[in-house]
């Protein structure tokens, strides 16, 4: 069974981003970038399926500008077998990404596509669901456990009230939540080996997909900062302030 994983290059989760002075976008110059944390979890799951003898091949796919190759190399170092970059310097919104991924799925014919539940830059939480719709496949979103047996995929999902388990027919889409697994730490030999693994580069034009953005970002702004109120010296002072100043009791 072939497994495909979508990995996005995003601003590292430790970075607190700033808006450009003119509000036209977020300052991305000299900012540390990394693989979207949810996609690391998705790659880890795919690699574990391969190690368990369930997946025969793991293909990592990224869409974006040239530096996404670094992100793909990370996926290869984690254990993916080969990588595909759909190279584009234009802004790719989730619907365009889903359409491009669909075109790649049609070429590669995987039985399972893993994505992150959400990219931590746009926080959209849309791409997996849209890809599933375009392909007409079932979706197991926000997955915290995946079990494959007899051509069926059992997915446990993190939902608002607790957990839910669904059985999906294959081929299927799964989006990874935080507790699906803990991604491995890649060691130097794997990083070296990853440099020799195949990485193909194609373009949206090759795939015949129109990637024009549908949403127009008019402006960005930082929310009004919350001011710290300072520290209280004792529990008694806290209770008194909550009662008399904040009036919450």
């Amino acid at each position, binding site marked *: 069974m072939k497994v495909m994983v979508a990995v996005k290059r995003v601003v590292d989760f430790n970075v607190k981003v700033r808006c450009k002075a003119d509000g036209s976008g977020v300052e991305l110059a000299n900012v540390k970038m990394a693989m979207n944390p949810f996609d690391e979890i998705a790659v880890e799951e795919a690699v574990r399926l391969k190690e368990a003898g369930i997946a025969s091949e793991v293909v990592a796919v990224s869409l974006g500008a040239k530096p996404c190759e670094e992100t793909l190399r990370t996926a290869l170092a984690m254990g993916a077998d080969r990588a595909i970059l759909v190279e584009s310097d234009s802004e790719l919104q989730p619907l365009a990404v889903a359409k491009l991924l669909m075109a790649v799925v049609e070429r590669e014919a995987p039985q399972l596509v893993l994505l992150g539940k*959400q990219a931590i830059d746009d926080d959209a939480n849309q791409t997996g*669901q849209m890809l599933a719709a375009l392909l007409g496949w079932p979706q197991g979103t926000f997955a915290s456990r995946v079990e494959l047996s007899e051509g069926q995929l059992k997915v446990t999902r993190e939902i608002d009230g607790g957990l839910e388990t669904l059985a999906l027919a294959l081929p299927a889409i799964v989006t990874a939540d935080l*507790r699906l697994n803990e991604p491995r730490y890649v060691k130097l030999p794997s990083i070296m080996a990853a440099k020799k693994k195949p990485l193909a580069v194609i373009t949206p034009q090759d795939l015949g997909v129109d990637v024009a953005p*549908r949403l*127009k970002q008019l402006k*960005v*702004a930082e929310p009004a900062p919350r001011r*710290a109120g300072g520290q209280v010296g004792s529990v008694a002072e806290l209770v008194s302030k909550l009662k008399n100043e904040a009036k919450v009791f």
Partner: protein
Amino acid sequence: MTVLVIAEHDNHTLKAATLSTIGAALQVGDEIHVLLAGQGLAAVVDATARIPGVAKVLVAEEVHLAHGLAENLAPLVAGLARRYLHVLAPASTFGKNLLPRVAALIDVAPVSDVIAIESPDTFKRPIYAGNVIATVQSRDSVKLLTVRSTAFSPVPVAGGSAEVETMDPGLDLGQSRFVSRQLTETSRPELDSARVIVSGGRGLGSSEAFKQILEPFADRLGAAIGASRAAVDAGYAPNDCQVGQTGKIVAPQLYFAVGISGAIQHLAGMKDSKVIVAINKDAEAPIFQVADYGLVGDLFELVPELLAQLDVGIGA
């Protein structure tokens, strides 16, 4: 303008988030249609029809819709969506699972986590863990939005009398099957509608401490219990307690962060709370930068002391 709202419910009652979503819908349109898809919906239909502003309740009932499976629900919503200019659902795990699937079926780019409606085609939404607010304009003929319940006031369930229309429930596509659901049993208020939330972090150190230190305190305040990701990952609290960028977004009157450092991903979920109290032994913890009242010290001493003083101080 008529707006379609996709109701979230458990076949018996409407979720509070649905009421806030209708509140948001009333900001874009004057007439609201609500889709109720499920099974055995009599009581929910009745309640929904009593919401002022709701003109029509569309009811699709069949066993294949009982568990909210996106595969069966999306074609139903997609078929309806083209008749409206706006389709709204709560930005809950239900809405986020469903709406993008609907959107792709009708070739529309959905807008997630809307926190403000600027005009019928322009919306505000947080990106980068809430560190940036983007204003986005949709060029699609139908706007598909998931809305944050913390940003819109819920509508009351009384006084209205909507028309009820039965719909063709569509087919069971048989692609997915509901197996089981383990809902966290609690008599405490729900996180998204609680007036007070007591959240615990890694500082609690164990699930026993969560039970012994945090729970009595929360119960004394009639509070909901929340947690940081680290506390959930460590098994101190169930997954549905996670507050943050990738968990629940809350905005109670009063939020206690106990043994939580205040990572940006956690702040993303709670920094719109009215009053924030932080209890942490590290005076440099970033949580103090957003707290209205910070108490530096050992939570294992401070929380029980606080509980004791509340009993004396506000007269149980």
